[in-house]
């Protein structure tokens, strides 16, 4: 059955809000806005970084706050996001994938690496949030590789 105009508009609004999440994520990283970054996640949201056979996960606002504060201070990444695809799964849930390039503000914006995020999104009230982000690094320069090893590392 064809969708109603109301259904189409609501789906478009959902897609638009979800599309904005990784953009705002990058904007916060550029500006060093850790509070802004963490506010993009659900209360029990999780961030995982995968690279060099390591996988590190941080979950919940306190852990995310600590991780992003340390990560942004040590790596000074400047991200650019690309190729965002979104799948609405209904019931206030969605998933997506987007690709990132990273440059280093501490070194004349030299290349830090690239990879992609596998995202899960959740609608909290009227606002879409990250339920989880899994960053799969495809290439990391040495500084980036060193910076992705964390205390909660698990193989």
């Amino acid at each position, binding site marked *: 059955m064809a969708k109603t*105009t*109301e259904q189409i*508009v*609501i789906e*478009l*609004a959902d897609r*638009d809000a979800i599309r*904005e999440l990784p*953009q*705002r994520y*990058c*904007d916060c990283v*550029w500006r060093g806005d850790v509070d802004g970054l963490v506010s993009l996640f659900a209360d029990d949201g999780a961030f995982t970084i995968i690279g060099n056979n390591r996988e590190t996960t941080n979950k919940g606002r306190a852990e995310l706050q600590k991780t992003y504060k340390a990560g942004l201070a040590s790596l000074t990444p*400047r*991200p*650019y*996001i*690309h190729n965002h695809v979104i799948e609405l799964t209904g019931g206030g849930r969605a998933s997506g994938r987007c690709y990132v390039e990273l*440059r280093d*503000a501490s070194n*004349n*914006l030299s290349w830090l690496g690239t990879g992609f995020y596998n995202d899960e999104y959740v609608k909290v009230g*009227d606002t879409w949030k990250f339920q989880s982000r899994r960053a799969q690094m495809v290439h990391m320069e040495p500084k980036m590789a060193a910076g992705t090893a964390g205390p909660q590392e698990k193989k």
Partner: protein
Amino acid sequence: MAKSVEQLAGELADREGIRELPLKYCDCVWRNDLTGIVDLFASDGEFITKGFKREHRASGREGLLKLYGGLTQGELSPRPYIHNHVIDLAGVGRASGRCYVELRNFKKNMEWVGSGYYEDEYVKVGDDWKFKSRTFRTAYMSVNPG
């Protein structure tokens, strides 16, 4: 209170109209379409460049045409790529946003020359969104844009 379908549709259209502005801006820069660039600004629109040491401001149609007329006269012929555009609708035909740009140089085999970001103010003029102001802040630039 949840937004009505009409409100949602209106906001989507506004966001789409605004999202297109930096894209069209880049497209015009690539094609050296100076009039096209200036047409994206309100009649009293302005472009402000904030480097590490100096600030330059061009206002109004004539000022902007003069500024963009010098776009390719230095050692840099910029070819921009825009990223990470975030938009905040402020109501009554106003909005603000930020977007990030990488520049390559057509005069130097498209080598990567730098990056920065725009802090934008948008205004709705009739049915069209325009730049009220663009403030460019350099993050790193290997050449002098002139």
